[in-house]
């Protein structure tokens, strides 16, 4: 979970202001709102919170019995001398007191009768435990309402599991993922006053002011998408196709091609492969400044990559092995990445994935993977990619 020092300091200033009101539930909310800046990390926050605070649950339960009886009463007024005396108690002593008091009071039925004393647990007192009292070294055990909903329990529900980013993209997240793709777009220029043309037009207009605005120049980014369709990719490719056809509206020059398992000498321009263009011609003619994204699971028999006539389609003959075409593709486009819907953990177990990874920088087809991949593309890191 990315947390910066800046945010960590902010949390401390919030705690210094006692915004959490010494309640774990409030602390849970406050720390989350300051430290976590995306709902995709909420689940990890819950897990971290559980890891840190689940141990104190038993204490909470014990306290609940005490709290059930505590009621808010009149404010406490102390002289400075008394305050000084109390401040001198150290924490060990306080804790010892607390334990002893709990033991002594274990069988008491009604804690609320302890008001204003100096020894027992109650309210408005000067003992070292209780609420709304005064003791700088004291243990405060909750006050006010809604203490019964414990933060640990909230965290335990892990309600944000569905927002966790390492899940494969689903329909909801597709919309969010789309927004990442827009970062490929350089921003359009603003409208500008064309000074020279304005002077010109104003002169022609006998000095009557005539404003001329420069045309809005909108630079678009160029993206080519290669998609694996067929076999194990069928469910994924439909999703990816949806994703990218929506993106096509955003990206001014968007091209897409299809392949089955590996790219050979013909590039499919539609899903079923009924119309194709020669790959070699395409690679020669295309502008190489396109950003290229290949989507596929790269899971195939190694022979499909390395053999002449190794293509998975029986009737298809390729005179060059698929891996040669992949290398040519890689060599043509400096900015290219491969998105894989398979979980990263499985990549090393599949030989063909290992081989493809040697050629292309590979990312998982998840929100995070897509995000990383797009960043990688924009920063031009794909040019530096070496075999893994």
């Amino acid at each position, binding site marked *: 979970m*990315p947390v*910066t020092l*800046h*945010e960590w300091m*902010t949390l401390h*200033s*919030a705690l210094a*202001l006692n*915004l959490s009101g010494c309640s774990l*539930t*409030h602390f849970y*909310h*406050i720390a*989350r*709102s*300051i430290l*976590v*800046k*995306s*709902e995709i990390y*909420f689940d990890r926050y819950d897990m971290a919170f559980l890891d840190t605070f689940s141990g104190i649950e038993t204490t909470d339960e014990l306290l609940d019995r005490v709290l059930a009886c505590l009621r808010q009463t009149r404010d406490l007024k102390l002289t400075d001398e008394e305050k000084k005396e109390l401040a001198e108690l150290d924490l060990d002593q306080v804790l010892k007191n607390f334990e002893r008091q709990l033991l002594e009071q274990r069988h008491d039925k009604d804690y609320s009768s302890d008001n204003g004393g100096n020894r027992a647990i109650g309210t408005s007192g000067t003992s070292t435990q209780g609420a709304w009292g005064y003791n700088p070294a004291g243990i405060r055990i909750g006050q006010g309402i*809604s203490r019964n*909903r414990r933060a640990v329990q909230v965290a335990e529900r892990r*309600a944000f599991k569905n*927002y966790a980013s390492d899940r494969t993209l*689903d*329909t*909801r997240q597709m*919309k*969010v993922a789309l*927004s*990442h793709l*827009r*970062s490929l777009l350089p*921003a*359009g220029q*603003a409208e500008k*006053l064309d000074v020279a043309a304005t002077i010109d037009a104003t002169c022609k207009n006998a*000095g009557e*002011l005539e*404003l001329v605005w420069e045309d809005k120049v909108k630079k678009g980014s160029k993206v080519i998408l290669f998609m694996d369709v067929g076999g194990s990719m069928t469910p994924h490719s439909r999703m990816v196709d949806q994703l990218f056809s929506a993106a096509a509206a955003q990206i001014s020059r968007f091209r897409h091609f299809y392949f089955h398992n590996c790219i050979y000498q013909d590039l499919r321009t539609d899903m079923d492969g009924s119309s194709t263009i020669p790959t070699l011609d395409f690679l020669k003619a295309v502008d190489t400044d396109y950003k290229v994204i290949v989507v596929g699971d790269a899971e195939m028999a190694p022979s499909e990559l390395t053999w002449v006539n190794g293509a998975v389609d029986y009737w298809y003959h390729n005179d060059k092995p698929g891996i040669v075409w992949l290398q040519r593709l890689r060599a043509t486009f400096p900015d290219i990445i491969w998105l894989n819907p398979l979980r990263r953990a499985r990549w090393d177990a599949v030989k063909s994935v290992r081989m493809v990874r040697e050629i292309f920088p590979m990312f998982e087809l998840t929100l995070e993977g897509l*995000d990383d991949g797009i960043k990688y593309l924009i920063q031009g890191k794909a040019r530096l990619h070496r075999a893994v």
Partner: protein
Amino acid sequence: MDYFKGTEDYVISPELRDSVNVSIALGRPLVVKGEPGTGKTLLARAIATGLQKQLFVWNIKSTTKAQEGLYMYDTVKRLNDARFGDRDISDIKPYIKLGKLGEAFAATEQVVLIIDEIDKAELEFPNDLLNELDEMSFHIPETGETIKAKHRPIVIITSNSEKELPDPFLRRCIFHYIEFPGEQLMADIIGVHFPNLETKLLREALKKFYWIRRFDMLRKKPSTSELIDWLQALIIAGIPASLIEKELPFVGTLLKKKEDADLVASKTDRPHYAYSTSTKSRRVS
């Protein structure tokens, strides 16, 4: 220090209340994200009403520039005025117009400022406001003036996550993600809108509503505002609760896409009348 508790007509969850109060106490902008129709924009209005402060609304469009929020120097007007020499244009001040952010800073009292749908603007937009929101001040080079907030305004920023907001921007903000309200909270919210609603009708309507939302395949899930519209339609048509249980009258108010309505209809055994409400109303009467 101001403490926001919610208002009569805005039901607030405890976690959102905590976030709002942290944001107020620390003087940092609060970024509110969430599904459409979860009341993000209304939040700022509720805070302004609850704390009795003036509200400034800055609606962001795709063409909005950060500069517009601070101030605009109307050079064209000044150029135009200069033509006849009939007025003094040496003073630039009248041609400087403060934007919403500028107005909020210049206000004599603490105000509430909402920057609505910040993700609509271009990617660099939030970064252009980093310093201004941090320091709550900016400089106008044309007049040499510095506008500095006397009281840091309470800034609420809403986002529909159309674009990701930049990390340096988020670092300076408090973040809150509004979860879609659960049934209990939703019943409270509905209660604010329709105080005299039949309990049975509400229960049946909510049951159906959450049942529809469970379909992951929906192109657009119905949100709170659609539920409210639907209930309004049900009340006006006088449809009894028992009928909602059996079929879905006025499903067109909940589902705005034909495909979605078809999908839901395919899950109910009865035909739906999504787009022929007239048939429905005949039956009811």
